[in-house]
């Protein structure tokens, strides 16, 4: 029996455009489980990113509730949401948003110091994480403009994990990377997930989606279907075929 990490009840999000209300998310009832690698797929405009932002507390729903543990986060104000995000969520975006004027290590520590004031403990955790993503001590001292795109995204993952979040949210994390560096980033995320890190990733890339154990397909703001792929294993052909069949059924 899996532990429920996050739960939504009739989650809906609407935007007003030229006097017309656009309902981007409609009545989404969803449970995210601890340790899962959940992948949200769907065509452009299906509401994937909007769902991710609502789940992670970066945006508030128009209707419905989001519950994290026993706290209803959809009722928090902006300050409350900021504290929630810092303590419980990590974010990896397509654009990495590292601060150019700070070294790689300082970028990571700056995020950590928002929650933890013990700089020594933070340094130790940052070094462990950097070692896990294969970023050397030399690279840690460099500035963001001096490292490659793949390295920058791995630094982004370290920054997202520095506060030991319950959920790591990733929005198209390999979207801006080439094939090889994208694969490195996916391997990194898979490794952290194998160690127990819960991951929620939005993607429209089959290669990325294959890494998840649970695939949700979003269409017109609603979850049209979901597929249980089981734990990822490299070179599992059947897994690929199962995902292809599911996406075909969904009209991908």
């Amino acid at each position: 029996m899996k532990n429920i990490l996050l739960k939504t009840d009739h989650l809906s999000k609407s935007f007003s455009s030229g006097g017309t209300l656009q309902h981007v998310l409609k009545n989404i009832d969803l449970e995210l489980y601890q340790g899962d690698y959940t992948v949200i797929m769907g065509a452009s405009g299906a509401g994937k990113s909007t769902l991710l932002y609502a789940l992670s507390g970066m945006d508030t729903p128009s209707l419905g509730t989001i519950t994290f543990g026993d706290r209803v986060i959809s009722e928090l104000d902006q300050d409350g949401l900021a504290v929630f995000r810092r303590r419980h969520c990590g974010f990896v975006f397509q654009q990495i948003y590292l601060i150019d004027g700070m070294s790689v290590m300082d970028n990571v520590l700056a995020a950590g110091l928002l929650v933890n004031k013990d700089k020594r403990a933070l340094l130790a955790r940052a070094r462990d994480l950097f070692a896990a993503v294969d970023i050397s001590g030399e690279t840690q001292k460099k500035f963001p403009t001096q490292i490659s795109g793949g390295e920058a995204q791995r630094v982004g993952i370290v920054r997202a994990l520095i506060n030991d979040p319950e959920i790591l949210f990733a929005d198209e994390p390999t979207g801006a990377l080439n094939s090889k560096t994208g694969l490195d980033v996916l391997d990194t995320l898979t490794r952290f997930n194998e160690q127990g890190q819960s991951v929620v990733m939005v993607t429209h890339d089959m290669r990325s989606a294959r890494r998840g154990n649970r695939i949700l397909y979003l269409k017109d703001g609603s979850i049209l279907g979901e597929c249980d792929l089981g734990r990822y294993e490299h070179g599992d052909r059947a897994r690929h075929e199962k995902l292809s069949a599911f996406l075909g059924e969904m009209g991908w």
Partner: protein
Amino acid sequence: MRRRTVWILLACIAAVEILSFFFMLTGKTDGSQDTVLVNKALQSVQRDWAAIESHEDQTGLDYVVLDLEGTVLFKTRPGLRESLNEAVMYRDTILDIQADGTVVGKLILYNDSVQAFRAWKQGIMLILAAAVCVQYAVCAGYLVYVDRIVIKPFHRLEGFAERVAGGDLDVPLEMDRQNLFGPFTESFDIMRSELKRARQAEARANGEKKELVAKLSHDIRTPVASIKAVAEVGAALTDNERVREDHMRIIRKADQIDALITDLFTATLEELQQLPVTPQDIESGEIGDLLRNADYLQRAKIPPVPACILYADRLRLQQVFDNIFNNSYKYADTEIEVMVYREEGCLAVSIEDYGGGVSEGEVPFLKEKFRRGGQAEHVEGAGLGLYISDHFMREMKGGLDVRNGAHGLRVTVLIGQSGKGF
């Protein structure tokens, strides 16, 4: 008349405010002291200087006597400023005390003009604040008045026009002579009742036509059935192949005529398909407004509606609720209980009156076309309301459930939730 009074009142208040402001900017209080009394006080202090402890004030002024070191030698009352610095700061009058031609001390005469000015200014501010408050109250009252007599009636008219345009002619427009649209309201409602009368006449004519068609179809079907039966017997008895083929042709043509009569009879049932239903995503909060609009006699207490996104056509849904409430007004004429709750994939709106319901035998037929319950004999109606409502709800991928409840007839409208595949 009322408008002019409001404007005059606002102008008076504005004048008070301007005058108060003007006085506040230009006004000054008289801070000067009586020179004769000051002189007298100084002279009496100088006279008593040798025995200043036993000095007694004869002027009524407040003052303090200091020696050159700043020590207080005498004061008319406690609470006066006792240092030269403080005295200078508050603009007190300071005079030298001389004895035998030399300065021996200082006389500080208390000056209360600053406090007087402050008190005067506070008074003006109070008047200004009171005037602003009154002005605000008048404006707010006027806005409420405008909302009551113009804006709300206008919105009611707007909703009424939408319903009439959508073919819903059952809900009357309540006339209120207090608002600006009173006379128009009456005209609009006359127009609605005339339209309704015309439509009923049309429905009656259609009904009569249908009866004729039904009668004719029955009259035609009987001889056609006889022809077919005779042809079947003829075909069975003859040995001649050509004659059998002729009989078979007669049978086929008889079947064709029978099918045509059936088509003719059922054609009128297809008319309903011409009413367009265009569902879209709406927020469930709108259901409360639709229910309140339908319950124009305010017999029901509308509960909060659970938040979700629904797939419905506002106009047709309004007609459905209008039909249900109107039926309840006509046949039960009691209080109405409304419950709104989420069910699997849909939002259920249950509307029940206290009229005791209908006989169980009638329940399965209530949604049928031209069916009217036992209670409906003496009440105006065509027997189409629940039939049309059911049709509308099915077009919205929802449903309509009619059954006897605990107190009366309970109609439950099931509205599909978007993305739930109800």
